[in-house]
């Protein structure tokens, strides 16, 4: 594949992965950005979603129902986890440790149940098209479209519904929310469940695109956190933009250097933005 084909290919692939990463981080954006719960286990729900999708489509023989069942399952699990960690969720350190325990538990359980050998799932749509001679699967395009549609409905849910209003209110002003009759504890639980169901759904969507291993959650969770922080906590579209930026830069770098090197440079760039970000934006604003 020549450079002429590689650059558009890297660009398209970066955009697709950016949309998926944006969907995963939108879940964390609700949990961490809006509710302030540092959910280290977010990547593990994504991993679990991929495994469940693989399991379901192998048993039913058809992939698409997984997109409905998986978010329900991971969402329910999220409700349970939030309920268990409710006593410590206002304490950042203890939440990190507790959700870290959840991450170890989920990863260990997946390894125990499904084993460490990578699982592969055939794409439910085998058709593809050509990008300057390089084949590209339509399924990936569909994944990106679905991701963006879900992001749009999440945006509607957060900005235009009563539930979204309450979700935004509990962090902004907990006392006032209680005073006007918002069920704060319930909102926290539901918000956490919404976030983990989005993570699970992303995992299910990418299941036919990746090799599914118990480590895939650990591999992605730091990236997801960075994306949410760079985007500015609680800002849905900013974090989606950050996710797309991360994926595209990484994708384009991979053309010129090895994947590890590309990841190093991307991480370093994002870390630089985290450090200099506030100052950078302030100076831009004048």
């Amino acid at each position, binding site marked *: 594949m020549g450079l002429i084909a590689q650059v558009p290919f890297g660009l398209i692939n970066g955009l697709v992965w950016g949309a998926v990463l944006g969907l995963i981080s939108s879940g964390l954006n609700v949990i*961490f950005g809006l509710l302030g719960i*540092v959910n280290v286990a977010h990547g593990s729900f994504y991993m679990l979603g991929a495994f469940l999708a693989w399991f379901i489509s192998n048993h039913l023989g058809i992939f698409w129902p997984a997109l409905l069942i998986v978010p329900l399952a991971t969402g329910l699990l999220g409700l349970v986890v939030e309920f*268990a*960690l409710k*006593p*410590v969720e206002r304490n*950042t*350190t*203890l939440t*990190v*440790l*507790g959700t*870290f*325990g*959840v*991450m*170890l*538990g*989920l*990863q*260990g*359980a997946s*390894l*125990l149940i499904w084993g460490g050998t990578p699982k592969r799932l055939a794409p439910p749509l085998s058709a593809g098209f050509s990008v300057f001679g390089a084949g590209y699967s339509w399924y990936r395009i569909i994944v990106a479209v679905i991701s963006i549609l879900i992001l749009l409905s999440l945006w509607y849910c957060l900005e235009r519904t009563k539930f979204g209003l309450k979700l935004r209110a509990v962090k902004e002003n907990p006392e006032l929310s209680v005073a006007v009759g918002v069920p704060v504890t319930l909102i926290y639980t539901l918000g956490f469940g919404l976030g983990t169901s989005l993570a699970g759904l992303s995992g299910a969507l990418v299941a036919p695109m990746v090799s599914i291993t118990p480590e895939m959650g650990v591999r992605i969770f*730091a990236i997801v*956190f*960075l994306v949410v*922080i760079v985007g500015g906590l609680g800002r849905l579209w900013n974090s989606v933009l950050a996710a797309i930026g991360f994926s595209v830069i990484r994708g384009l770098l991979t053309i010129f250097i*090895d994947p*590890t*090197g590309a*990841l*190093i440079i991307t*991480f*370093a760039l*994002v*870390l630089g933005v*985290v*450090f200099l970000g506030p100052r950078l934006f302030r100076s831009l604003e004048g």
Partner: protein
Amino acid sequence: MMAERLLPCFKGFATLAIVGLIGVLPLFMGRFYVVLVTEMIIWGLFALSFNLIYGYTGMLSFGQSIFFGIGAYFLVYGARWGLPLPMNLFLLTLAAGILGVGVGTAVIRVRGAKFFLVTLVGAILFHLIALDNRWLTGGDDGFIVSAAYLGIRNNFYLVYGVSLVVGLTIAGLVRSRLGLAFRMIRDDQKRAELLGYWTDGFKVLSFSLGGAIAGLAGGLYGYTSGFVSADYFHWSHSANAVIWTVLGGSGTVAGPFIGAALLTWLREGLSALWGKVYPVVVGILLIVLVVGLPEGIVGMFQGVAEKLKGSFFEER
């Protein structure tokens, strides 16, 4: 009055007895167990380095693996250059401490969840860089440590002695005015700032001291195993230090050692039976600990001691 004087006295004797007992253990134990206990002590030292940063100064750092790896690689290169072991250990500790000043200065600019994340990503970066530069680190295959091995028992006493000195130094340090300043920053940084303390300086100092000890632990581990690879930089080591410290009791000197010893023993014990269950057990243990016993094992005993003291006073 009696109880108030007796309790620290009792604590001192108990500590002395346990430390002394561990010191004579290798005279009675088989080779496998001597190596296991050596490993436990090194991990305890490593956890202690994290505890100085987290338990005493309140910074939840996942960056300890950076210093662990740096220490181990300085050992490798020091041995290649023919440095004598004590000199090598001293220099690698110093190097890790200096790196700690640099990393610490960078990371203390952010706080809370961001601090955790930035140190974690820093650790991931170091691991990736170590993997990517095989000429420098040997990557996954690593390097053999070319220093003459002391033998299992002597190596145990080296680790034991070094850890004892470091442990006592830290125990003295946290009781000194410096330790008081650290804890004030942990409990209320704003107040410390208002009282005129240079909190950034203290935080960097704590981070750097923790880094130096983590580097020493890395050097000792590399020397004990005789093999160093990029895996030393893996952030899971940082995570282990966190788990051990929280289990044993953060903000105590004995806690990290107890936590590290317990979980290392548990891992060895479970590996023989059903090793795959270990991560699940640790995960559940961590959740239960955080919710039910956030002050850890030592903290629990301290609580019991406080209650005893209270009941003595009431009787009077």
